């Protein structure tokens, strides 16, 4: 190689080598020596470095954590989150539009109209024209507010300084109809709007409640409110306020972040697929949706029956509860109110409506007294209104109100007292218990105590303070509280309290109702605690009370369940004597009703179980009237409860048969 060639080659390669050196030098000059900052109002200055550029090109799509689902005991969904979009629009004004407020208004009005047309493009809407007009009106107001158009001076002029040149609006939440989504996306792709309108479809969730009318109270509902973040901002937070929805575990779903970048036109493209079905906890309730439907229908039919035939008045409220005795699971809990259209805002009567239980309490008193050794089951009491026992034991106490029976009774033992529901007989039994024993009775059955259920706003009930006040004289306690307690007066309960009390009578002092069977969390099954039993009543006590309650449902004259016996025999052709055991109750009380003061109410109640001698199902029914119309537990509260018990047994037998046939056939059908 000649020296000239070497020189030229060296020069060319030298130039090529200078290029990266120059680039590195330029990079150092721009990024280090010239690195600057942009001042931002109210925020830290923006550093003009490579990381800032990368950050501005990066986007993250955040999918919030879905709330957990609630299912019934057979896996039927009761509440679940389903994916929807929250659609937000960024709108910027071009220089041309900023030059004329009239043009700007026209363009923004047209935009509101286009959005409204898209939002009303759901083909299932009853009247799309009305929906479109409503959306248009709402969006116009929104745009006017965001761009401060109400403050704009009249006439056609350039947009004054200080007015926003762009705005971000929430067009709609819970967008889940495909034609609407497509219509909105088409607006986002319009060429004439490129650079001036950007639509963001943010992943969100909407809560669904199948068979909603059956589950208002027990499944409950959620509310969404603004809450302050720890970082200082505000965020929308959804939480359960009523029923099973209030369980904290439902808020423990896992959200998802999807990273992406923006191209030169600002359109995002993502570096990971979306998570269509994120993990969420599942709360398994004890409710059986089919039995819940039956309970709701039975209660409503019974409560409204009077209005249909026009003979009797309609109750004010009603509750019907069904419990599985082996587990304490509440499998059905129905609530009914007169003149209530929105059950979401009404109280859930099974655990929120208090009443004086009346005679349905008598088997519990007899069981306790027999176990405590103060009752001889075979002893015969004179239950006549002016009989010797009444004269000797009750009249002398100085009670203000005399004790009366609904129908005249004669000589009765404890069994007969329960069958005939004699208040005089029960008073004689109740007076055998000391004040401490009455307090222990309340504790044993859980009256005046919370239900230990994960259901907020439950009522506790209880008795007036003076009932067990040590300063109340014993004679006064015996004359008033002891006698009233004996036949279910002077204290208040809910239907759930009665169900729990009977569950405790059958299963022991520590038995509690359950409304949740367990939770599936992160793939793990976490069962709810099983039913505890604690101190139990002896089998002979239970047998004696069960026999008496079975005879309450006999066709015999004087048996308070004979009306229900006759009705069921006519409807189903079934003799329920010996099959269903129960106790009817009728109570007249004074209660305070907002706007009406203290009014007289009548409660018809019934508690029953099936099968009578080895109970599997326990039902409690209460109906309350706020007038003095004739109203009895045997004829009003017992029929729906007995029908529910029979349906529960039928359904269980059918399911057992289906399971057996699956096992026998060796295949799932």
């Amino acid at each position, binding site marked *: 190689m000649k020296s000239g060639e070497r020189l030229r*080659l060296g020069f*060319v390669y030298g130039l090529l080598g200078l290029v990266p050196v120059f680039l590195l030098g330029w990079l150092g000059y721009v990024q280090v020596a010239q690195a600057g900052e942009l001042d931002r109002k109210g925020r830290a200055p923006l550093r003009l470095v490579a990381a800032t550029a990368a950050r501005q090109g990066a986007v993250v799509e955040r999918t919030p954590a879905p709330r957990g689902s609630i299912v019934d005991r057979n896996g039927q*969904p009761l509440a679940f989150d*389903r*994916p*929807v*979009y929250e659609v937000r629009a960024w709108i910027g004004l071009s220089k041309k539009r900023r030059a004329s407020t009239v043009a700007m208004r026209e363009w923004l009005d047209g935009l509101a109209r286009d959005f409204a047309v898209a939002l009303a493009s759901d083909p299932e809407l009853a009247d799309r024209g009305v929906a479109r007009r409503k959306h248009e009106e709402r969006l116009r107001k929104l745009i006017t507010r965001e761009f401060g158009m109400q403050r704009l001076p009249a006439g056609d002029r350039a947009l004054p300084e200080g007015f926003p040149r762009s705005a971000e609006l929430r067009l709609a939440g819970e967008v*889940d*109809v*495909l034609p609407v*989504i*497509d219509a909105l*996306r088409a607006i986002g792709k319009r060429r004439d709007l490129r650079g001036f309108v950007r639509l963001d*479809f943010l992943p969100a969730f909407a809560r*669904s409640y*199948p*068979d*909603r009318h059956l589950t208002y109270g027990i499944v409950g509902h959620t509310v969404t409110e603004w809450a302050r973040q720890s970082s200082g901002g505000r965020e929308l937070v959804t939480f359960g306020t009523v029923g099973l929805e209030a369980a904290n575990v439902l808020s423990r779903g896992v959200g998802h972040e999807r990273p992406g970048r923006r*191209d030169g036109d600002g*359109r*995002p*493209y*993502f570096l990971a*697929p*979306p998570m*269509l079905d994120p993990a969420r906890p599942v709360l398994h309730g004890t409710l059986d949706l*089919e039995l819940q*439907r039956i309970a709701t229908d039975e209660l409503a039919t019974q409560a409204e029956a009077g209005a249909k035939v026009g003979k009797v008045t309609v109750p004010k409220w009603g509750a019907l509860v069904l419990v599985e005795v082996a587990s304490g699971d509440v499998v059905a809990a129905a609530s009914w109110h007169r003149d209530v259209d929105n059950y979401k805002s009404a109280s859930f009567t099974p655990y929120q409506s208090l009443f004086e239980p009346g005679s349905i309490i008598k088997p519990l008193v007899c069981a306790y007294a027999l176990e405590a050794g103060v009752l001889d089951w075979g002893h015969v009491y004179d239950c006549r209104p002016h009989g010797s026992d009444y004269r000797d034991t009750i009249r002398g106490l100085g009670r203000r109100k005399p004790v009366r029976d609904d129908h005249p009774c004669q000589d009765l033992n404890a069994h007969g007292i329960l069958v005939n529901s004699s208040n005089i007989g029960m008073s004689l039994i109740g007076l055998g218990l000391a004040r401490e024993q009455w307090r222990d009775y309340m504790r044993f059955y859980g009256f005046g105590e919370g239900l230990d259920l994960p259901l907020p706003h439950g009522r506790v009930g209880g008795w007036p303070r003076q009932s067990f006040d040590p300063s109340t004289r014993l004679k006064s306690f015996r004359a008033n509280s002891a006698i009233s307690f004996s036949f279910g007066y002077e204290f208040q309960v809910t239907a759930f309290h009665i169900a729990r009390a009977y569950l405790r009578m059958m299963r022991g002092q520590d038995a509690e109702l359950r409304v949740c069977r367990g939770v599936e969390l992160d793939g793990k099954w976490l069962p709810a605690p099983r039913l505890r039993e604690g101190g139990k009543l002896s089998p002979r006590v239970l047998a004696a009370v069960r026999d008496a309650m079975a005879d309450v449902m006999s066709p015999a004259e004087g048996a308070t369940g004979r009306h229900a016996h006759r009705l069921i025999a006519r409807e189903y052709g079934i003799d329920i004597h010996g099959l269903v055991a129960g106790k009817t109750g009728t109570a007249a009380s004074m209660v305070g009703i907002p706007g009406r003061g203290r009014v007289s109410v009548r409660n018809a109640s019934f508690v029953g179980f099936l099968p009578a001698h080895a109970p599997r199902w326990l039902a409690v029914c209460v109906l309350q009237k706020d007038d003095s119309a004739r109203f009895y537990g045997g004829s009003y509260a017992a029929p729906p409860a007995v029908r529910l018990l029979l349906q529960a047994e*039928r*359904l269980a037998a*059918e399911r057992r*048969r*289906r399971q057996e046939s699956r096992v026998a056939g060796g295949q799932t059908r």
Partner: protein
Amino acid sequence: MRWLLAGLMFAAFVAIAIFTATLRAENATRRHGLERHTTEVRDRWIELQRLEAVLLDSESWQRLAVAHSRALAAEFERRRGRLQ
């Protein structure tokens, strides 16, 4: 000859640079395409979830009626079997 090689190398560098840029652009275009498809799938998934919820609610009476008639048929068969 050397100049030819140098020229070819330069052309190769330029071709590689253009190819790389094209590939990256193609990559971005494909990602956009994928994103569009993903969006369409997600839109339809949302619609599917909605329809399932609607169906679940509207069909519950039917579902129960079917279950009930199945139970009645089974009970009928059982009683007939007992009679025979």
